[in-house]
């Protein structure tokens, strides 16, 4: 039941919400270092949960055309194209690619080469503007002799072939999802009781209750929950409440081909994540860090946490989220003082009889 840490601080959410003999808290550990950006999670989520489309957009920024988590996208694969330090802005982890070969960015080079190999279609997709790019081809050093690595998948398992040359460019991919916070602002502020804490410690919207007041949407420190156009209600990831109740793995984790998305008991996942982080650091991937794993953070720890390879904000995550209800007692107190000031002003104003 409600205790001293009910608004803020480490707590086990299901017993705090009143469950007796709750099952162990479950969650997601999303290891972005093995994400290949295939978006199987997005598709599986849509399929299982029967979510309508989000519009068929080309955002023109990267291979990510979903854009973000919305009422109709409960998984979102972020896709970051990142030149490394020393070649313009980009990463803040200088040295991550220090030992790698240097040269002109592979992408421009290959784009120029590719533009010259196909029959002229009258347009030059991806090489804006076409004339300048072709002219620039003369100024860029020609590719080294031998086959040019185009970043395509290799025909054999990684490690069996000689490593492809690496450019000074990296792709970061991350499957984002509702964090199922220990202290969930959306749930705290919901005025209808539509959002509730499950026995597994996750946070779910009851669609037959939600009246679309929209309060949960600005409350979420991660910008996850959203109101569906035309439907009027708030929707977000349920961590497949219908599946985990039957002992099944949520659709996204089930579909993930690289086990980037791992589902399980949260304590076990946290231990696993620590081991993975250690191993990555030993391998020299010093930019790896965990995000949302600590019960001491501003939301009491996330039920869905991540291993990232850059700062959280690069992935569109807040660097230090704090549940807004942490300050709620102070807010009510200030409102109380303001209300008293109002009453005093009225008493003073009407103090004299006419």
């Amino acid at each position: 039941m409600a205790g001293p840490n009910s608004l803020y601080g480490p707590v086990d959410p299901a017993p705090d919400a009143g469950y007796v003999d709750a099952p162990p808290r479950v969650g997601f550990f999303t290891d972005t270092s093995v994400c290949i950006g295939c978006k199987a999670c997005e598709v599986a989520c849509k399929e299982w949960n029967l979510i309508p489309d989000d519009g068929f957009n080309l955002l023109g920024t990267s291979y990510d055309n979903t854009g973000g988590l919305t009422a109709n996208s409960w998984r979102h694969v972020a896709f970051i194209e990142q030149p490394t330090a020393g070649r313009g802005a980009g990463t803040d982890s200088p040295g991550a690619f220090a030992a790698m070969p240097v040269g002109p960015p592979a992408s421009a080079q290959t784009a120029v080469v590719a533009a010259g190999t196909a029959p002229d279609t009258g347009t030059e997709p991806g090489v804006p503007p076409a004339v300048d790019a072709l002219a620039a081809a003369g100024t860029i050093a020609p590719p080294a002799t031998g086959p040019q690595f185009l970043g395509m998948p290799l025909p054999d398992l990684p490690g069996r072939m000689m490593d492809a040359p690496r450019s000074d460019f990296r792709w970061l991919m991350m499957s984002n999802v509702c964090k199922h916070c220990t202290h969930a602002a959306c749930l705290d502020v919901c005025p209808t009781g539509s959002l509730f804490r499950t026995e597994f410690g996750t946070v779910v919207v009851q669609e037959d209750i939600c009246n679309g007041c929209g309060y949960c949407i600005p409350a979420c420190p991660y910008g996850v929950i959203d109101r569906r156009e035309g439907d009027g209600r708030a929707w977000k990831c349920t961590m497949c409440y219908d599946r985990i109740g039957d002992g099944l793995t949520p659709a996204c984790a089930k579909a993930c081909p690289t086990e980037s998305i791992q589902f399980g008991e949260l304590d076990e996942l946290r231990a696993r994540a620590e081991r993975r982080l250690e191993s990555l650091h030993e391998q020299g991937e010093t930019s790896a860090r965990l995000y949302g794993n600590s019960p001491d953070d501003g939301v009491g720890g996330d039920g869905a946490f991540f291993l990232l390879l850059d700062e959280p904000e690069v992935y569109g995550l807040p660097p230090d989220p704090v549940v807004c209800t942490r300050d709620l007692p102070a807010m009510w107190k200030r409102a109380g003082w303001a209300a008293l000031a109002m009453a005093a002003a009225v008493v003073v104003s009407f103090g004299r009889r006419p």
Partner: protein
Amino acid sequence: MRPREEAERPRDESLSPPPAGRPGSGLARDEAPGGPLRAEAPGGPAAGRATRDRDGRRRRGDRDGDRPMVPPAEFRSYYGRPVVKAPVWHHDIPAYLFTGGLAAGSALLAAGGDATGRAALRRAGRVTALGALAASTYFLIHDLGRPERFLNMLRVAKPTSPMSMGIWILSAFGTAAGAAAAAEAAPLLPERGIPGLARKLLPPIGTAGQYGAAVAAPALATYTAVLLADTATPSWHAAYPELPFVFAGSTLASGAGVGLIAAPADQAGPARRLAVFGAALELYGARRVETTTGMLSEPYREGRPGRLLRTGRALTAAGAAGALLGRRSRALSALSGLSLLAASVCTRFGIFEGGVASARDPKYTVVPQRERLASQVGNGAVAGRKETGPAAAGH
């Protein structure tokens, strides 16, 4: 959505490097002036610019106004996309902030007027409170995604949800204020039969309702500040210590405005004093909101929210001055009252839109949180409590 933002970009980009063509980092950065990424992130307009760019005239003001005082913040984001979601609320909610405040202010005016034997203030206060209450209810229901489920609000009473508390406050206030307003109709009823009984019973019920509404009114006027502040919307949340005082002042001023419009000169004295108190509180609170939260005060000074709040300030000052100086002139008093009401509208919309602007720009989410992390490290707190890893120690 993106094409629309593109279309809103101003055409006069001659001072800025061309945005397109750079196979970019995928990161929006608002670097130091002259920096390579100063003007435009490759992923389209960084929202940080979009807020300023939405209005060409403001941009000019920005250049020679507040803007150069603060060095442009350096931050990173995912293609300039917002981190938190802006509220989906439209004009209904700021309109409710006004009408709810007007109802509360009018109820206080009615109670004060009745207690001190000023019938004009009582009548105007009671009737306005009911009208404003009806408008509030309309706005609140109309804003819902599923208006037919409005009553689901009354399933629970949750102290952690300011909206839930507000609905219960509004329900209690509404019942009481409704009874008070109904009592004003008592003299119109026939003297015999059941209507005659109602004619006798209504006045005492109305008086009870009037004082009940007056007790609930300060809560009704200030809970809305908690409602806005209890979100991840950066500029609302940061302003939580000041917002209740802005709304309290705005409420008193609008109640006083009703009194100034409706009451003859010999009864309007309390309304004048109330106008001054309300205006002072509102001006003080708004000033604090616009200055004390550092970078998060910015949205309240720039663009449309800034214009609204400046207009509100001018109208408040004019209204309070008119209330004091216009003792002899009914017309001047009424004008002052109108000015106070308009000021309240401007202030509410300005505060609302300032928060929305802060949510649309990732800068306002990322930079203050980065600063918080940096100060924690500076204070010797656990380095990067959100992140474990060597990179976290760099902050």
